[in-house]
């Protein structure tokens, strides 16, 4: 329980790091389109990596199905981002936000790697709920408002329902796992 809370806290910090870049105090650090694409690529890759970890570690059917879907969906997003980037001539660029996101994700992954069985399943799905919530908030509050290119902005807006769908699915899995634990 304590572990998964700290995982969420870690993710929360990462989100805060991304969102806080856009506070009025340092409004001059508005993200550029290449930096936005860099963050989108990083976020998708993080979720794919976590899902692959879950496919390696979990025996739970629902967790595995969810993780497999994350690999499929986020791989499709990465392809469309890469296609759009090529079309718009935008090359993903690192930023403090993407670096911080990756560093925090690595920390989360290391914590997940230490866990097994039901503890892993719970920490993984809790993290997925928190992560998708953060990505949705970051898209709405930072990435979409900052995007300069209209097509990029529209693609980011189009991605919101995907992340919302994953969030709802993750919450369903979370509830199902809790139900099983509570029923004993």
């Amino acid at each position, binding site marked *: 329980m304590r572990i998964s809370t700290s995982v969420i806290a870690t993710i929360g910090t990462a989100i805060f790091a991304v969102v806080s870049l856009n506070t009025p105090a340092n409004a001059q650090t508005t993200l550029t389109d290449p930096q936005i694409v860099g963050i989108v690529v990083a976020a998708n890759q993080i979720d794919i990596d976590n899902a692959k970890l879950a496919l390696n570690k979990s025996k739970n059917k629902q967790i595995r199905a969810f993780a497999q879907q994350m690999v499929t969906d986020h791989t499709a997003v990465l392809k*469309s981002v890469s296609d759009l980037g090529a079309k718009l001539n935008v090359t993903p660029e690192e930023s403090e936000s993407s670096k911080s996101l990756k560093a925090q994700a690595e920390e989360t992954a290391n914590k997940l790697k230490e866990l097994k069985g039901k503890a892993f399943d719970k920490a993984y799905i809790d993290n997925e709920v928190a992560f998708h919530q953060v990505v949705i908030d970051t898209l709405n509050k930072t990435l979409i408002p900052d995007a300069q290119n209209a097509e990029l902005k529209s693609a980011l807006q189009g991605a919101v*329902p995907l992340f919302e769908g994953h969030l*709802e*699915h993750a919450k369903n899995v979370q509830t199902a796992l809790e139900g099983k634990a509570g029923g004993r």
Partner: protein
Amino acid sequence: MPWYRPCNPSFGSALLLAVALFAVQTASAGGKNAFSYPPEEAAAHNPDQATHTVEIKDFKYRPALLTVKIGDTVEWKNEDIFPHTVTAVNKSFDSGSISPGGSWKFVARKTGSFDYFCTFHPNMKGKLVVQ
């Protein structure tokens, strides 16, 4: 007035209704009756049958609400880049995963109102009404 028009439109409608009712009766009899007349065939013999298409795009079913007649075919086409499902809340139908560019269809054999969703993205919701 074209020469080929049926003399009495209401007679035509009554005939269609009679056939439709027969199809309903056959279907509700459980399909495997003395005539071994499966519901699929009953539906196929329903001259009123139509095929309706629901497009799945941008995480939406379009149209989100579709009303059809019993015996009609409904086809869902996945125009998104992600797999989706068409799953009735009451489990009366479930497409399983429909790949991007793929489709799934079924013949509406039961009347009622069916809320459905995508099991992968449960924020996607639609409704099928079979009359």
